[in-house]
């Protein structure tokens, strides 16, 4: 095991005494990310202020075989930034400069600790914005977004972080600084940028991010429709998609989620609704006007009993407030809850929602449903009271059953929160051993010693065998299976 005192001394010399924390009280601040029921106190926290300092910290880790975990704002919901007890936590929040805003190139260059919303704020005066908008966008960092391939409400139309990052400077787990991609698209060679985004800190630390800026739309129109059931709201969603409309967002909340949101922020959603849909269209005015009429008609046709159209930005904000506050709002109606994140094909929505209801009833647990209906990304909130013996484990059972439902219907165990430490054990349900082994070939290329965020994403680490570049001959397992060659 690493001599932490010696490592701390080395890091203090490299990045400054005040940038290295070893005091147990100070370390406790970093014991968890947004998934607070996993807690580990790191051996050491490093707060580098430059990319070169990040590289120096990683080099020190590599040379001493010390595990490291990168952390941005710590808002992740899968325990991706959960520290390693014997390792270094590299906090990127002091790398927080917006280096370039170039509307003429539709690009911005930022450091990893920059807050997501600040990129949009820097670009807005020029008529541009940064499209990925996770609900935590007021506090989450771009570096964290890169690690998690964060989504948001508007990714139905605009895609995810991976579609909006064109270049990175990363520190690889051996401490090298490498550029992947750039300001221009289609950099020649393997798309290591594409592999890095969403790799949850297991391939290295991003130290500079070049993002695509998107032109602010001419028009944004938002509609809130109340339905008596999620079935109706689901049918309306399918009809909108089938009509060839691609809204910027289609969000759904069920009765319990509406109740929580009302209690928390008094968003004034239609009384007595079994489900609400928020549909947002954006783009050129003429297009939006035509499609908005179509969407309103389709909602009415599928049973919307009340439809509200935001007349201005304030009304739009009110409609969104209910949705964006939903996770926290559930705290008003339940002392404890699990936020689940799974994906199903959009067409399976009614069937899966019914089944979630049944499973919840079987276990005597309430589930509030909030989700990105347009792309089938469910966020069921499983409610429980930890003070009542047995409730927590029943909630866990229901939460796990929901993921099984997602897999059963050909979906995914995570749409945007990531695998992290929380869902590594579910990976074999979605992928075969060979699939996971193949992903880890990339891991071995970047991090043969497995020191970058170990224990995350993969349930079982792969032994990387010989050092990369010296591996000759074919896979040994395979060698055994093809005797006829000899």
């Amino acid at each position, binding site marked *: 095991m690493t001599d932490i005192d010696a490592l701390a001394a080395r890091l203090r010399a490299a990045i400054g005494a005040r940038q290295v924390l070893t005091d147990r009280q100070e370390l406790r601040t970093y014991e968890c990310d947004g998934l607070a029921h996993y807690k580990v106190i790191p051996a050491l926290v490093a707060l580098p202020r430059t990319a070169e300092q990040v590289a120096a910290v990683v080099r020190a880790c590599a040379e001493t075989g010390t595990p490291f975990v990168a952390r941005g704002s710590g808002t992740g919901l899968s325990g991706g930034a959960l520290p390693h007890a014997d390792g270094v936590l590299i906090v990127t929040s002091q790398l927080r400069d917006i280096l370039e805003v170039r509307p003429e190139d539709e690009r911005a260059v930022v450091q990893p600790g920059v807050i997501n919303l600040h990129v949009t704020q820097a670009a807005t005066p020029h008529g541009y914005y940064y499209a990925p908008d996770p609900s935590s966008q007021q506090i989450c960092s771009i570096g964290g977004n890169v690690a998690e391939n964060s989504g948001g409400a508007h990714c139905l139309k605009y895609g995810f972080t991976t579609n909006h990052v064109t270049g990175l400077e990363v520190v690889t787990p051996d401490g090298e600084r490498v550029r992947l991609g750039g300001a221009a698209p289609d950099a020649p060679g393997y798309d290591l940028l594409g592999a890095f985004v969403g790799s949850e800190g297991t391939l290295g630390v991003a130290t500079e991010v070049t993002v695509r800026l998107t032109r602010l739309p001419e028009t944004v129109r938002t509609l809130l429709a109340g339905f008596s059931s999620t079935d109706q709201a689901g049918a309306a969603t399918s009809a909108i998609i089938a009509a060839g409309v691609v809204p910027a967002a289609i969000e759904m909340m069920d009765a319990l989620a509406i109740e929580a949101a009302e209690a928390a922020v008094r968003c004034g959603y239609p009384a007595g609704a079994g489900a609400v849909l928020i549909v947002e269209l954006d783009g050129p005015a003429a297009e939006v006007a035509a499609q908005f009429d179509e969407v309103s008609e389709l909602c009415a046709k599928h049973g919307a009993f009340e439809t509200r159209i935001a007349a201005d930005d304030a009304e739009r904000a009110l409609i969104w407030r209910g949705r964006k506050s939903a996770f926290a709002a559930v705290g008003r109606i339940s002392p404890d809850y699990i936020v689940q994140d799974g994906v199903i094909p959009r067409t399976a929505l009614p069937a899966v929602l019914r089944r979630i209801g049944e499973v919840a009833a079987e276990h005597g647990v309430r589930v509030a449903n909030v989700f990105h209906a347009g792309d089938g990304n469910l966020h069921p909130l499983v409610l429980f009271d930890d003070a009542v013996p047995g409730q927590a484990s029943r909630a866990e059972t229901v939460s796990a059953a929901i993921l099984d439902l997602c897999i059963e219907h050909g979906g995914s165990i995570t749409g945007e929160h990531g695998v992290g430490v929380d869902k590594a054990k579910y990976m074999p349900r979605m992928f075969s051993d060979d699939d996971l082994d193949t992903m880890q070939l990339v891991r071995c290329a970047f991090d043969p010693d497995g020191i970058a965020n170990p224990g995350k994403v993969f349930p079982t680490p792969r032994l990387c065998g010989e050092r990369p570049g010296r591996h000759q001959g074919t896979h040994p397992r395979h060698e055994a299976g093809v005797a*006829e060659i000899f």
Partner: protein
Amino acid sequence: MGALDELTSPAGDGDAVCGVPARLVAAPRDTAEAAALVTAARGLAVVIRGGATKLGWGPPPRELDLIIDTRRLAGVVEHAAGDLITVVRAGTPMAELHGLPGQQLALDAPPSATAGGTVAANASGPRRLRYGTARDLLIGITVVRPDGTITKAGGKVVKNVAGYDLGKLYTGAFGTLGLITECVFRLHPVPAASLWVRAVAPPLHAAKILAGQFAASALEVNAGPGAEPELAVLLEGTAAGVRERAAAVAELLGGEVSPEPPQWWDVPPWPADGVGVKLTGRLSQVPALVATAVGAGATVRGSAGAGVLYAGLAVDQGDAGVTADQRTVEAGRAVELLRAAAVRAGGHAVVLTAPAGVRETLDMWGPVHGLALMRRVKDQFDPGHRFAPGRFVGGI
């Protein structure tokens, strides 16, 4: 060699890659057979061939024993219209995917190109401005690794962050990491209406379109020596919306609205025996890049909205006064000029194709960031360096 004999046949006259003949060809019928073939072909140098529309892109293979033809791995496995996705076998012609009922795979490619080949070559066209490229549209993939292992990544839903996004790694890998046998794509609705605006206008005016509120699906430039540069803009959407926007674009550029694209739309600007170069750069540098290329005698086309251009140079074959050596030197000089301009623009110049004799003398890929990491990835996937050896960056 029993299995190999069963699954392969002797190569014919056409079974060559950039002039390098193969000994054997094979056309597996499904993923399982493809895996058996790759397993049996252990030790052989392999190049994968789809519709062969881009087989000539890249340097010739260092060695070649076996061509794996994917065209029997064809057909749409699933089209889930309500979910806007399709599952297709790799050898499926793109023509089939451009015309799914009411929906489309919005990836420009020649009709005879295959889905797998289009992904492997990371080919794209004008509509990338709106829909992105293969990396944005591919949501799941099945690959037979060079050791014969069948492996999947991604899935059948668009929103999915479970595990590494290996689809992106295989996209544009030119078949150096394994054999793609199945792809899952995100689809888009076929727009109700489409119109083009064509204008004689300098590339600089493309910025006006980008800064406006036209939501163009494509913004293409066409320029060459001795001709006025042109811009063409594709607008898609509702009939009324498209008419309105097209009229506004036409007024801004001083152009004309047309129901048809110009003749040069999505046509590579190089002659069959010419040099074709892909140029990328910052959007603001597109005019400078076009000017340099035209100055070097090239015809340039491509997306002024995405910063991806294609330059075509004719290599004079017939002129009796020019020696083969001189032609080679001239082509090399032109490529160096384009490459320097692309680097100044923040991008790259990659030679996609060149005539025999010239091809061998060019550094087709040019300098690449992160090459050491790329070599490590290759070593992990294909330690014997048997898949498309020498065809990729840095001799990978």
